[in-house]
């Protein structure tokens, strides 16, 4: 218990003294996971909406695959991304293994099915008649899709939170493809793992608390937007 208290003290000490290393690690976590979430929003929402609105043979299989993807284990993603990005691997020419860019790729792969699955559920949950109504009012198909996505924005924001929450807290893939390199690809989760194995439990707890605070702050902002637009 004393250790946890020490950890909390340490967290506030590191935060208030603006420890440059911890600040850098925190910012990098935000950048990597933020960018990955952004990429996942693009692919997740567009493909999720497409699958939700179209009928095609094998659709159930695709939906079940997307839903399974929501449970994609980060370490497995990390392993495959590593193998692809190896110097002598198929994407080795990019030369991005052990860089923050590789972490973004891996995290985007993890977050995309999350966003996609929730988008799919959200769009499908809209009343069927709404579509017909919108079309009957003379909207083009593209306009209809835009209106539907806007209608589903509240559950979609939940998708954003799930995606971001999934990657900011993820460690398996980040440590594999990023390498936890000091001052370069070290993020809050990988630093926590390292400090734990170094026996610096107070620092590890402090990093954990900073991670929670960061996640709380981001979700607070998103929840604020979401709840303000709640239909009354």
């Amino acid at each position, binding site marked *: 218990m004393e250790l946890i208290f020490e950890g909390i003290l340490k967290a506030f000490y590191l935060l208030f003294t603006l420890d440059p290393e911890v600040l850098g690690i925190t910012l990098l976590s935000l950048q990597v996971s933020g960018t990955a979430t952004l990429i996942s929003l693009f692919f997740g929402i567009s493909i999720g909406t497409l699958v939700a609105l179209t009928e095609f043979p094998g659709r159930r299989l695709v939906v079940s695959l997307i839903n399974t993807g929501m449970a994609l284990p980060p370490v497995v993603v990390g392993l495959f991304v590593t193998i692809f990005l*190896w110097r002598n691997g198929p994407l080795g020419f990019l030369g991005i293994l052990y860089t923050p860019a590789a972490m973004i790729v891996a995290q985007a792969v993890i977050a995309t099915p999350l966003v996609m699955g929730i988008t799919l559920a959200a769009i499908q949950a809209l009343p069927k008649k709404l579509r017909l109504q919108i079309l009957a009012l003379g909207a083009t198909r593209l306009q209809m899709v835009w209106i539907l996505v806007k209608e589903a924005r509240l559950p979609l924001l939940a998708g954003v939170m799930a995606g971001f929450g999934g990657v900011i807290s993820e460690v398996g893939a980040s440590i594999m493809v990023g390498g936890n390199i000091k001052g370069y690809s070290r993020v809050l989760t990988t630093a926590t793992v390292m400090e734990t*194995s170094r026996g610096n439990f107070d620092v590890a707890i402090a990093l954990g608390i900073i991670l929670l605070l960061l996640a709380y702050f981001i979700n607070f902002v998103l929840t604020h937007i979401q709840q303000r637009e709640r239909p009354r």
Partner: protein
Amino acid sequence: MKKSKTIHAILAALTVLLTLTAWSPVQAQQKNIILSTTTSTQDSGLLDVLIPIFEKKTGYFVKTIAVGSGQAMAMGQKGEADVLLVHSPAAEKKFVAGGYGINRRLVMHNDFIVVGPSEDPTKIKGAKPTVEAFKKVASGTALFLSRGDNSGTHAKEMGIWKAAGINPEKQKWYQQTGLGMGQTLNVASEKKGYTLADRGTYLALKKNLSLDILVEGDAILLNIYNVIEVNPAKWPKVNAAGGRAFADFMVSKEVQDIVKTFGVDKFGSPLFFPDAGKKEEDMGK
């Protein structure tokens, strides 16, 4: 209007984020060195001291990937690392003999210790040689925690079991954690079991452990670190010049002097002993 304002604000924030993240992924490739090493060199903090000096001196950027010695060599074997700093001599010799590595050079040593609960249920304290202590563990009921991860420490442990003529696999008293040294020590401490550890990691974690040193100071417990350059003839993408520069740096007088005193202020004794230029056959004499 309010709604679109919010959306614009979010978009603006995201754009800023993206701009901040605009890395150039393909930086000067030959300036990067991938150093594949064991966890003990990173967890002890030694590399945090040495690498900034090296980078400042040479302009190279070192990507340290801290894994077990087994995985480090597997990376070298695939040409996915430029230089290795490892401690698993038998596997290293195989690695070099297979043509994957060149210029294997002695850097430093410390030693392994057998640790366990202070009650020492199987009474192995002071047993000599270490093989005898392992035999006692095998005849007792107290747990032995193995790393089980192909690391240098795991290789050493397997070597001692072999010397004792015991196959510990699937024995009731034998458990493999599959974790790093620090975590394995914690497991041993919680389960009141024995384990083989490198002295550096044990000293660094000692304050949180209820484990005592029970066996030490035996030639078989020597823990030798070598630096090996990955053979560029095998893998043309290897940064041979960078790997060579780092290996030369590790055996330089400057580094050897730092190694000599590293950890003294924190633990009262050095964590590693410099050995550059010595012959492996003379070690432990």
